């Protein structure tokens, strides 16, 4: 079931079409990656989902029905441009923002203390925000985003500004939230994290969705019939490899393992291909190479105006 859907959302800013009939489907309990180059319209879409701005046309469905103003209380949103009151004390500020999200004072306080202890920043409770390092501020921001335990979480570029250690902590937290059954929308340029975290993606380019679906399915769609064959090095040169059914892309031997990258030229099953290759030597492994999300992203985005006619 889809927790959140947009249908043909159009948003026009003065002289600039920010979103052109954008439809996305975010399944309940999944991590949904919203990808796209800078200025593609991701933030505009997120703002529409958050009801910060209204679409010119098109609809947003929340939990199966049309989105209502009250729905924003069920969304935790961490904007890309993060900001908090610099002069305000961290704890006081967190309680204030949690109250604005509808929590009562005692509940807000209890939950905040729990999270502050978990992230080991309890000692900062009475410090002003401006005294904290950027990473610390990000942690505070993350806590504030999730403090009201909303069913839908939206993270806009959550890893920017984090060191690898803290990025990993954050990644674990996001996965844990997913395990708790939350739905997560995750906007990023960081393709490596997409492969690790996201279940589904939508790629927005030039105001339109150009690619969407399950991550594995998308990668399969873009697979280039390339395989990696690992053999025990037998010292035999690849004389019998020459065939019109496949071509060798590379052939390297290191530490007794011969790695051959093969491109399948004709339509045949993988099993048939393997049976052709068995005589080459002792097979260690045979894997189909799926393109990385990074390659897919670059290929799709830099393709010359495929969507425009």
């Amino acid at each position, binding site marked *: 079931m889809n927790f959140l859907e947009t249908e043909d959302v159009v948003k026009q800013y003065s002289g600039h079409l920010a979103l052109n009939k954008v439809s996305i489907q975010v399944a309940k309990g999944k991590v949904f990656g919203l990808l796209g180059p800078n200025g593609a319209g991701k933030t505009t879409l997120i703002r529409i989902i958050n009801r910060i701005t209204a679409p010119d046309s098109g609809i947003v469905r929340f939990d199966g029905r049309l989105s209502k103003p009250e729905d924003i209380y069920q969304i935790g949103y961490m904007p890309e441009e993060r900001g908090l009151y610099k002069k305000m004390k961290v704890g006081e500020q967190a309680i204030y923002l949690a109250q604005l999200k509808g929590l009562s004072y005692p509940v807000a306080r209890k939950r905040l203390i729990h999270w502050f202890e978990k992230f080991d920043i309890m000692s900062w409770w009475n410090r002003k925000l401006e005294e904290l390092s950027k990473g610390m501020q990000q942690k505070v*921001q993350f806590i504030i985003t999730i403090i009201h335990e909303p069913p839908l979480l939206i993270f806009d570029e959550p890893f920017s500004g984090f060191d690898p250690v803290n990025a990993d902590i954050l990644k674990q937290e996001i996965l844990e939230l997913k395990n708790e059954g939350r739905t997560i929308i995750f906007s990023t340029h960081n393709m490596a994290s997409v492969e690790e975290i996201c279940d589904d993606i939508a790629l927005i380019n030039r105001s339109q969705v150009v690619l969407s679906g399950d991550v594995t399915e998308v990668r399969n769609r873009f697979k280039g019939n390339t395989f990696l064959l690992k053999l025990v090095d037998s010292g035999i040169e690849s004389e019998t490899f020459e065939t019109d059914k496949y071509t060798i892309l590379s052939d390297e031997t290191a530490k007794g393992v011969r790695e051959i990258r093969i491109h399948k030229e004709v339509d045949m099953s993988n099993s048939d291909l393997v049976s052709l290759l068995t005589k080459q030597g002792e097979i260690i492994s045979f894997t189909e190479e799926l393109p990385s999300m990074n390659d897919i992203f670059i290929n799709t985005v830099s393709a010359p105006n495929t969507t425009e006619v």
Partner: protein
Amino acid sequence: MSKLEIIIKREYLRRVSKKSFLLLTFLMPILMVAMVFIPLWLSSIKGDDVHNIAVIDNTGKYAALFQDTENYRFVQSEKSLEDYRNSDNKEIYAFLSITDDLLQNPTAATLYSEKQIPGELSRLINQVISKELEEEKMASFNIPNLKEIIKESKINFDVQTIKWGTDGKESKSSSMVASITGMVFTLLIYMFIMIYGGMVMQGVMEEKTNRIVEVIISSVRPFDLMMGKIIGICFVGLTQLFLWGILTTALLFGSQLIFGGGISPDMVTVNGMAQQGTNVSANMMNNPEIFEIINTINFVQLGIFFVLFFIGGYLLYASLFAAIGSSVDSQEDTQQFMMPITVLMIFALYAGIYSMENPDGPLAFWCSLIPLTSPIVMMIRLPFDVPYWQLALSIALLYGTAIGITWLSAKIYRVGILMYGKKPDIKELIKWIKYK
């Protein structure tokens, strides 16, 4: 607690607990009272020294006239001015040399000293001599009882101004007291609208430039955010006003008790030394009628209308300031939009000052009805008993406009607060207002 209340509470508490707020709130009344009392107090301090004044009177007519006072002792001297000048005499403070009959030759008297001669001394000498010369002159006319005639024909005239109360009671009023009261309230309302309106703008800009607004906006309506700020800061202003009122009153009474009645009569006798202004206030304090005059001003009514006009005017300007703060990215960009508002406020202030001369004239009348100037100009008219229909109309217009402007500002605010990058012009702002 609703979202709006939470925001109001935070905006209020954050500002009220600031050190600068507390400092200003408690120091200002002390400063005000000090400004009134310290000159009074200082001028009432007398020098302990008694100065010797040598009178070198060649004519012999005047030397005996000078009576010793608390501070000056007059010594008749036979020595010449030259002798004193050559000798190293420290005992004599100043030398009064009279070389000729002063009625014939008024320039014949000269006061010499190595120090700066205090005005008090020269006034004292002038008084003594002119009194003597007056009598001499009168005597020279040879009219019997001339002195008495002149004394009787000297008339001090001061027209009494009486205000007819609605109940037919008559009471003394003073247009000066009314003007001063009006002016104080005018300046106060001008200052408060400027300071607290500016505070709203700063607050909005802080939220925008820190991008806090993106976090908050997903849980609060922009309108609540804007109104929360405006109302919260309004309470800060009212709190300050209230505390100032109480503290100033308390301090005034307190210091009057300390310095007591001693000051006022003293002030009158110090006469020459005290300046015109302090003389007036001293006279006013001394005068029991002053209470009657002050009582003709209905301070309760004045206070109520002040608060009403303050809230209306503040709402009007603060929402404009909020709209400006939301539509720019940096402090420098505010100038372009601040200009017209500042010009308008200064115009209102001047209109108020000129209305003081004629509080029922056309300038005062129209400016106290036009909502953008009415909060300021109406203050000057209030002590002069404005007809109730005018007050009602002015308030209705002010609040109507304030609500309209707030509504428009909210529309600009809603778009502007999330818009970054380009500085909008008026055309752009109008487009924002039209956004759904």
